[in-house]
């Protein structure tokens, strides 16, 4: 009994947090920072407990290890900053943000469980919940423009249906438990079965859908463009970390028998995503959409690395992803300071002349974009090294040429933004910067700058934790 409680302590802490927030809501607390503070508190407790009991397990269902802890730590730090930043947003909008915080806490539980699961049923449950929570975010914090809503919900429904059907089919076909190891054996035995392969694809597609990988990007692209900043931030920065962790784990533990086909599929999708992302980024006037398309490009690269079906390539993909996310998180954090007359600025054109009156925000945004591009000595450079090293090792020069060709195209979009910020005349009066947000921005800047110096031999430690999945 005690063991069971210990196994779920971090999740229980998060549940306690949910209850706490519900109680606060029941008592009609209005201040968003109260909810955010509460959520942060329980998040910290959960994280500490996760670290303390990092190797708990429920045989056949959940297995926590260094790999899951790695993603938990990274994700939770990101979420902690998210709570901080979103509270300022909700305060400015005079919304409590209780639902947002609660949904986020539930997501964290789903993330933890999904990452730790070694059983497809758990994955199914956690992912479905996550999917619904995602829809819940959009439903609660929808934009006023409802023209695409039906279309988007329909598509999401189809994706969820594909996921359910695939899971159901596998559940039907597999005799016995749905653990990863037996599932892998099942896949080996049925390697030539198109139906089984289709079911496997059906499991992957929803992940790619949530990540916004082309050609499954349309809904996410539309939604992120119209979402509020906290939701877009969550969708763009937090969600992908955990989803990628799960994809890497599943690819490694379950989908190896289909390596050849998956290599081709994932690399094709990756390249397609890169191309579409780079081109689409140049058509954007909305900041969030620009970031989303940028993510399409970078996630395409991660997918390519994943397709190489090699643990070192997967690790390189993870490092690349991590460094990219650092830059993106910094860029998003700047967004919380970009207000004019109380309204948050969503368009690139509204940033005209930002550098003249808000040099701090402008410079941090500049630095984060440089990091995303991969210029040394910033964090993104580490990712670039890992990427190129892997591709050259594997002899994939064509991929390199495609990657860098479209990076140039993508950079053009970033440069348009920089040009708007530094070169154009100011058209809006920007509100005073929030000191708390500034603090987060500075912290992000320090992280971007210091990552390149590999403080505390962080990369090596991350590698040790990551490689647990190969054991």
């Amino acid at each position: 009994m005690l063991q069971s409680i210990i196994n779920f302590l971090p999740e229980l802490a998060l549940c306690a947090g949910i209850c706490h927030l519900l109680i606060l809501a029941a008592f009609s607390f209005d201040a968003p920072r109260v909810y955010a503070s509460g959520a942060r508190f329980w998040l910290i407790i959960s994280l500490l407990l996760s670290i303390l009991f990092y190797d708990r397990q429920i045989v056949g269902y959940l297995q926590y290890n260094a790999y899951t802890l790695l993603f938990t730590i990274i994700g939770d730090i990101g979420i902690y900053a998210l709570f901080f930043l979103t509270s300022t947003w909700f305060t400015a909008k005079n919304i409590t943000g209780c639902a947002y915080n609660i949904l986020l806490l539930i997501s964290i539980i789903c993330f933890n469980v999904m990452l730790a699961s070694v059983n497809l049923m758990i994955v199914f449950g956690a992912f479905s919940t996550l999917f619904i929570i995602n829809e819940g975010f959009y439903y609660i914090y929808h934009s006023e423009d409802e023209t695409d809503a039906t279309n988007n919900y329909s598509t999401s429904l189809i994706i969820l249906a594909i996921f359910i059907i695939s899971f159901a089919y596998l559940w039907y076909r597999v005799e016995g438990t749905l653990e990863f190891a037996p599932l892998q054996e099942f896949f080996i035995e049925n390697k030539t079965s198109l139906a089984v392969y289709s079911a496997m694809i059906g499991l992957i597609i929803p992940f790619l859908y949530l990540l916004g990988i082309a050609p499954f990007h349309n809904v996410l692209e539309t939604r992120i463009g119209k979402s509020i900043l906290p939701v877009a931030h969550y969708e763009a920065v937090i969600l992908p970390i955990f989803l990628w962790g799960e994809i890497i784990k599943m690819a490694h533990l379950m989908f190896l028998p289909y390596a050849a086909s998956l290599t081709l599929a994932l690399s094709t999708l990756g390249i397609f995503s890169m191309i579409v992302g780079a081109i689409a980024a140049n058509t954007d006037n909305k900041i969030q959409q620009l970031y989303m398309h940028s993510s399409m490009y970078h996630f395409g690269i991660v997918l390519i690395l994943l397709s190489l079906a090699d643990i070192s390539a997967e690790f390189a993909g993870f490092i690349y992803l991590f460094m990219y996310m650092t830059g993106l998180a910094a860029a998003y954090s700047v967004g919380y300071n970009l207000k004019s007359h109380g309204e948050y600025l969503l368009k690139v054109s509204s940033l005209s002349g930002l550098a003249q009156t808000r040099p701090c925000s402008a410079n941090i945004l500049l630095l984060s974009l440089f990091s995303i591009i991969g210029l040394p000595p910033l964090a993104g450079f580490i990712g670039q090294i890992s990427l190129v090293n892997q591709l050259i090792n594997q002899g994939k020069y064509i991929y390199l040429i495609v990657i860098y060709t479209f990076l140039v195209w993508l950079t053009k979009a970033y440069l348009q933004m920089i040009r708007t910020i530094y070169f154009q005349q100011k058209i809006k009066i920007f509100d005073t910067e929030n000191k708390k947000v500034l603090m987060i921005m500075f912290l992000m800047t320090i992280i971007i700058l210091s990552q390149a110096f590999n403080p505390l031999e962080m990369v090596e430690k991350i590698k040790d934790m990551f490689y647990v999945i190969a054991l």
Partner: protein
Amino acid sequence: MITNIMAGLLAIGLIGILKLRVRYDRMFSVMMFLATAYIFYIYMNLDFSGIESGFSFLWEKTKIGDITIDFYPSDLSNLMIKPIFFISVYALLSNNIFRYEERIMPLNALIILNLIVLSLIICAKNYVQLMTMIFVSDIIGYLTIKNADSLRKYVIYNFFADMCLFMLLAMACGKIQSLDITRLLGYEQIGRHKDFVGICAALAIFIKIGCFPFYSYLTDIKTARFSRIIIANVLGTPLSGILMLLKLHNLLFVSNLMPLIYQIVTVATFITGIIGFVHSRNMLKKVISLDLALRGMLMQILWINGFEWNRYTVFYLIGIYLFNHLFYEIFIYQKREVDIVNMPSVIESNERALKFLLFRETLLMSLSVWLVWQIAWQYDDISIVLGITILLAAVSIVLHHIYKTPLKNSQVIVCGKEKNIRQSIFECTNMLVLGMGFFYLQPEISSIIAIAIIFLVMIASSLGKPFYQIYAKKDEDKNDLVKNLFFYIIAVPLTYLSRRCWLFIDLILSEKIITAAISAVGYGGERLFLQLNGQKYRTPIRALVLGIILCLLCYHQGGQ
């Protein structure tokens, strides 16, 4: 001793740069002259035969030879140094006596520094020293002229000449792999591209000397002060050009084309000089043209004597300066009137100094003609006889205009008969110099008298009458053929070419075409994306189906 002499000269030169009050300036400039004269006296009495005396400053060691700044004057090199030294001292005296400027110390300093530089050119044994000193002499010439209007062309022409010299010596250095000037003799055997080398050398030397058709930068300095013009013309760039010719004539004549070109240029220079001397109304331009003619003749003399500098050429060089100075004195005594038309005739104004000047001119002319005849006799060449005869006629025509003709626009100016002691001293010195010339050259007195009589008769005759019409035209510069030639053949096409290049290279044939093409492709991609994304209802479904089909296709391609 030599080192001390050079150090002394350098010190005097550097002191001259100081900007003092006018009163102190007079005093110091006299002291500069006296000091320089004393050093000259010591130098003349030194014995240069036997052991090499001088100094050598090691600048840098290189794999193709040591770069040194040498000054080891020998008897041969002193044949060049001593007359230049003499002229410099004479010029210092002239500056002190005919105080044309308020402050003359700077000009004196330039003369002395120029002397040092020319001495180093003469004694140069390596390219580095030669080129450096030639360039420094350009700068001294530049500072001497001190007139912005004149300087532009001067700088550009000299820059071009210096680049040709640079190119020439760079080529030679690259081939011979040595910096030693004596090894340039070997270029004829081992060198490549001889025609090009010859052309380069020709351009560098001819521009420096100011030969036809490159003389216009020298005629343009006519707007500067007379005293400075003389220094620049006689001791400046043209003289460094002559020294270059003496040092580098081997490179000039590696090409078979050059002897003919050299002859043509020499003759053309002489004729241009004579025409300019007779034709021009401007006194300064006359003197510059006279120098041009005299240099042309000097080039011919050097050609016929195998580019050997001997005692004849020494006196010839001194003679050039004396001629210049005599015309300068005319200018001074005519109250600094530049336009000949506005000058009164000397006979009417009854100026004693001018009349004595005529006497000195006659002596100088006679001596010069005799000297040239000696050269012609020695080398059996008639061309320079013809040349000196033409020169004699030209000078007599000009002097006729100055001394005899009551030209229009002139007013009788009573110049005054006040005795000027300094001028008298100078006249005595000049007579002394001429006397020394007679002493050293030992001419036949009967020949001298005959030439003098002919000269005076020519002045007195109506030889110059046909040229009165020429002076009626004021704007002679507009019809300068060479200037127009350069303008229309070089300047205009170059400007045209430059603008066309800008149009084609910077605007059309640049990366703009390539980047525009790439951008067009990109914009096409973006439009396609927007179009595909625009269909709101069907797009996500289509994309989903496409994705699934892709994945399924990979199943087959993957060989499953």
